[in-house]
């Protein structure tokens, strides 16, 4: 069951097309990555999902139905540019935002208390926002995003501005929300976090979807047939015509040799392993899948060349 279904969405702004026939589907309970360089159209798409703007054509379905009033309160949105009322008190502010999303005053107050405790902010509840450090304000913003138990969470660059410790806590909380059944949409440039948490991604470039699918499948399909091998010897391996090339080679940290080899087209892994094993002291052999970062850069660059 797909929770979000975006069908042929077009959004035109004065002078340029922000989204050009964009379609994607996000399964329920999935952690979904929305990737793309700056100005690709991510924010435009997120605003449409949030009902902040309307598409010029195409449609967006939530649970198979067009958006209605209840959709808005079923979404939690953490924008890239964080913002809260600086003059409002911490608890007051979270309660206000929760009530705007349709929570009752009592529920909002109870949940606020619970979340502030969880993030060690309870002593700050009656302080004005301007008195908080940037990291604490980020946590307050996160709380106000998730407090009303939305089914869909949209995080725009959630980890920017967090130190490693807090980023870890945030990641933990996000995965916990996923376990509780929320569908999570990430928009990010941080490819490491995409590999770590996202199951599926869509890559948008120049207003168009250029890549969509399961993260592991995508990495595999972009495989360059590169393998890391470790040999317990000092002599470097020699390339073998029709079998593999040696891309790089260096002494290993704990002795021996670390090398990167590229298998030739059509060569099976087991054949390569058998051959190397027969010639050298083979101690390690692992496939080197491209990182999402490499896939990202490659796809965007191919796109650029395709346009020329």
């Amino acid at each position: 069951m797909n929770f979000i279904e975006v069908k042929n969405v077009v959004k035109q702004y004065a002078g340029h097309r922000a989204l050009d026939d964009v379609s994607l589907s996000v399964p329920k309970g999935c952690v979904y990555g929305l990737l793309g360089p700056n100005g690709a159209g991510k924010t435009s798409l997120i605003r449409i999902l949030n009902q902040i703007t309307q598409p010029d054509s195409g449609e967006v379905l939530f649970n198979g139905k067009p958006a209605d009033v209840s959709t808005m309160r079923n979404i939690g949105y953490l924008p890239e540019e964080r913002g809260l009322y600086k003059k409002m008190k911490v608890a007051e502010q979270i309660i206000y935002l929760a009530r705007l999303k349709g929570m009752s005053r009592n529920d909002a107050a109870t949940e606020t208390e619970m979340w502030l405790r969880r993030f060690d902010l309870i002593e700050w509840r009656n302080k004005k926002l301007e008195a908080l450090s940037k990291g604490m304000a980020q946590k307050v913003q996160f709380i106000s995003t998730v407090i009303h138990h939305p089914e869909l969470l949209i995080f725009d660059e959630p980890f920017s501005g967090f130190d490693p410790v807090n980023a870890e806590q945030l990641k933990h909380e996000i995965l916990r929300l996923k376990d509780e059944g929320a569908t999570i949409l990430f928009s990010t440039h941080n490819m490491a976090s995409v590999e770590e948490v996202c199951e599926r991604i869509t890559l948008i470039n120049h207003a168009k979807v250029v890549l969509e699918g399961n993260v592991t499948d995508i990495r595999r399909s972009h495989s360059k047939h590169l393998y890391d091998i470790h040999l317990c010897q000092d002599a470097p391996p020699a390339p073998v015509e029709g079998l593999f090339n040696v891309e790089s080679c260096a002494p290993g940290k704990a002795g021996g040799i670390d090398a990167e080899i590229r298998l030739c087209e059509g060569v099976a892994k087991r054949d390569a392993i058998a051959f190397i094993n027969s010639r050298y002291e083979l101690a390690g052999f692992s496939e080197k899948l491209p990182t999402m970062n490499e896939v990202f850069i490659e796809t965007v660059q191919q796109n650029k060349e395709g346009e020329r």
Partner: protein
Amino acid sequence: MSNANNNKSRLSLIIQREYMSIVARKSFIVMTILIPLISVACFALPGLLTYFNTGEQQTVAVVDESGRLMKSFKNTDEYKFDDITPVGSKNIHEFYSNADNVYAVLVIPANVDSVPKVNIYSNNAVKNSLTNLVEECLCSALSDERVKSYGVPGLQQMIDNCRVDVAVDSVKWNDEGDEERSSAIFASILGIILAMLTYMFVLMYGAMIMNSVVEEKTNRIVEVIVSSCRPIELMLGKIIGVGLVGFTQIAIWVIFLGVVSSVLGIALGSMAGIGSAVSSADSAAALTALAGDSEFGEIIEILLSVNYFQLISCFILYFLGGFLLYVSLFAAFGSAVDQPSDASQFTTPIMMIMVFALWAGIACMENPDGSLAFWCSIIPFTSPIVMMVRLPYDVPFWELALSIILLFATALAITAIAARIYRTGILMYGKKVSFKDILKWIK
């Protein structure tokens, strides 16, 4: 049904927040106290200044070549007259340069009788109060002399008896044909005070709304809020919330004014020797009883003859309409900029229209039935101010109705347009927006 309720509670939530965010501020409390004090000070200051200015007596040296007019100058608190006739009119400059503490030298020529002209010399610009005093003293002395020169006994008495002051009181018939003291001038002054209040509130709260819109935009909170409600709800919530703050402020002043005037009324009542009547009976009744043929009674009669019901209900209507009209423009233009200082290109035209309206309102006091008055009290952008001034001069009902209907229709249309601008503007960053862009957003 439940959706409508949700929207309503969302709007009231926003109104509550906007209201509290202003009322809880220290600056609101300070302004509520300061504004009446400053306005009272503005009226009282000139009087106070002259009161405190009469401290030092200044010396005026007099060369009286006629030889008989010196005695007509009596020293006052402000001026002391010294006879220096022996110095002679040729040497007064030398005398003035050497003398300390001489403010001015007055020279009365010998032929002042036939050519009534005198000169006052000084290093400073001579004060009006001195020239007035000298003129007054010489006029009465010289005219007395002339009267005496006719040699008719009792002539002075006859002339005094012939002098007549005519008092012109305008009297208006009411619908039953009864006489009423016309209070148009008083009422239109009251009207212009209320119009000024509208003007002040629109500017003050318009700027406040604009800043709050820009602040939400630069804070980036607006993106979070509009993912929870529609932009128009946020804009209307702001306008209504701030409007309620305005009413709160006026209510505080009215209550304050009520307390002060009833205290003052009781004090005046007891001064007029009817303290017992006031303390036992209703003070309004006592005031009416006081309205005899004394001057105080006339003032009371004028105060009571104003059609307060019409004035106040029109004030509320024009205040609401004008407030909505102008303030939604401020909100729209606030959404188009990234910081308040960029907004001046949009607010300057609004300010110019408002200053024009105020000027037209003051001009209408002179000629309340002229075509300037008519058109400015019909056109929505000026009517909230101009019509308030015209109101006491029996504006035909159709004009009043047309003006109010036009005002509200325009205010609603402008609010709808403002909402379109606002909707686009709040999500627009880092772009210098022009009037041309804004026109595009409206489409």
